[in-house]
């Protein structure tokens, strides 16, 4: 890593990766990565497709298991947790999938009610309705409540996906390419939404993106990944002025 590290070390690290490695057969995807996410910060991870960004955040939520290295979330070593402990940890982490991953057999309302009923075990319909209405207003889509996912545009699906994740009020958000495939206006709206979620709920976020506008709008700190390792770290301004041509090329 040839860039100066810019992290507010006074804040508590909510995620800590140390020498993480992950391979699929002979394909070595993560080659010794180390990083920290500090409380309340937006950390943007950039890099070419296939460099292991999504694999890294899937390891964080326990969807994939690392081969080597240490992965701590809220101080707990993820790969040593029992199924029940992992489930409890996951409630504190939100994950926005690239496609939104809405349950396509359910309406928007049912999508939003699902985590409230199945995870928080709420049964009071009035309370559930209030939470659903509040979060839908938060993402600016109160009229979509009775629509099916197939009736929504790509941007709307991502907003509802974000709403479904945020309805559990997670402390950490992991965004997997939140603006990919969206027009510039919708991308800007999603970036503003990420910022408003950070301000409103004080979440710490890792945002994986190729979108420079999204990175500029949301990042407190940027990590650049290449071939399974982090090759640079800093603010957008610092990375734009990097001596390394490869890193500068991301910001052109």
């Amino acid at each position, binding site marked *: 890593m040839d860039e100066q590290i810019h992290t507010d070390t006074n804040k508590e690290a909510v995620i800590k990766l140390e020498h993480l490695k992950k391979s699929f057969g002979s394909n070595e995807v993560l080659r010794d990565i180390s990083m920290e996410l500090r409380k309340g910060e937006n950390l943007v991870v950039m890099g070419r497709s296939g460099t292991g960004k999504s694999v890294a955040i899937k390891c964080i939520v326990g969807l994939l298991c690392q081969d080597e290295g240490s992965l701590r979330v809220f101080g707990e070593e993820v790969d040593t947790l029992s199924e029940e402990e992992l489930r409890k940890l*996951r409630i504190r982490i939100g*994950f926005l*999938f*690239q496609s939104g*991953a809405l*349950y396509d057999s359910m309406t928007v309302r049912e999508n939003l009610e*699902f985590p409230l009923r199945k995870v928080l075990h709420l049964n009071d319909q009035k309370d559930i309705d209030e939470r659903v209405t509040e979060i839908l207003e938060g993402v600016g889509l109160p009229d979509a409540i009775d629509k099916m996912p197939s009736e929504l545009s790509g941007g709307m699906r991502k907003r509802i996906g974000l709403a479904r994740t945020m309805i*559990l009020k997670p402390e950490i958000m992991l965004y997997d390419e939140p603006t990919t495939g969206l027009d510039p206006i919708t991308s800007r709206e999603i970036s503003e939404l990420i910022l408003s979620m950070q301000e409103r709920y004080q979440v710490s976020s890792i945002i994986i993106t190729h979108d420079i506008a999204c990175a500029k709008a949301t990042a407190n700190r940027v990590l650049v990944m290449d071939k399974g390792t982090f090759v640079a770290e800093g603010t957008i301004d610092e990375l734009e002025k990097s001596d390394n041509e490869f890193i500068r090329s991301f910001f052109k």
Partner: protein
Amino acid sequence: MLQAFTISIKRVFEEAGDQFYFAARFFRNIFRLDFEWNEFIRQCYLVGYKSFPLVGITGFIVGFVMTLQAQPTMKAFGAESFIPKMVSISIIREICPVIIALICAGKISSGVGAELGSMKVTEQIDAMEVSGANPVQYLVVTRILACTIMVPLLTLMADALGLAGSYVGININGIVTPILFFHKAFSSVEFGDLLPAVFKTVFFGFAIGFVGCYKGYNTGRGTESVGLAANSAVVSASLWIIVIDAIAVQLTSALGF
């Protein structure tokens, strides 16, 4: 050559291990207090009610065709009056359970495989898992139990419709009253004919649900994998049905049924 053989053997053991782990997750989640009753009832409706027309028509035609095929031979021996007995025992003991299970493997197992496979490919199962919900309990347990309960019921209904089909078939070339037909049909059917047949359909239903869920839940990447999951679900479930049937026949013979 030896290396390819070693790899194949390794894959077989890996697959067996994965299936064993999946089965363990299923059984561990059955006994949880927060059972998904609503989803279970919805799956019973989808598996049972939605399959009924296909299963019913099949059962009726099986009885009808068996009767028409048997009539010339039985007539040559002057044994036409044995047709109701022969058809009822054949249908109840063997033909309907196996044929209905194979039809359910084609309809239900592929449907479940494709549904869960597409949910896997579009990351819906991952989304459920990372939200802290329990996808095995919500998606897998409900579907397997629904199949385990509904396939025997569908088979019983197909048995009844098969006998109705036989009655219609016998009346094409002559007139037999319903009372006489069903009296003759049930005079030779004993509880020992029905019980093992129903019992094995419970296992058929479990195999249909389990294989569909396993193949769908473990789908690879891309839409091609969904088709492969649905296809291999049908093939594996059909194979399991034949194997279970062979074991059940041996067991029932050994137990004197």
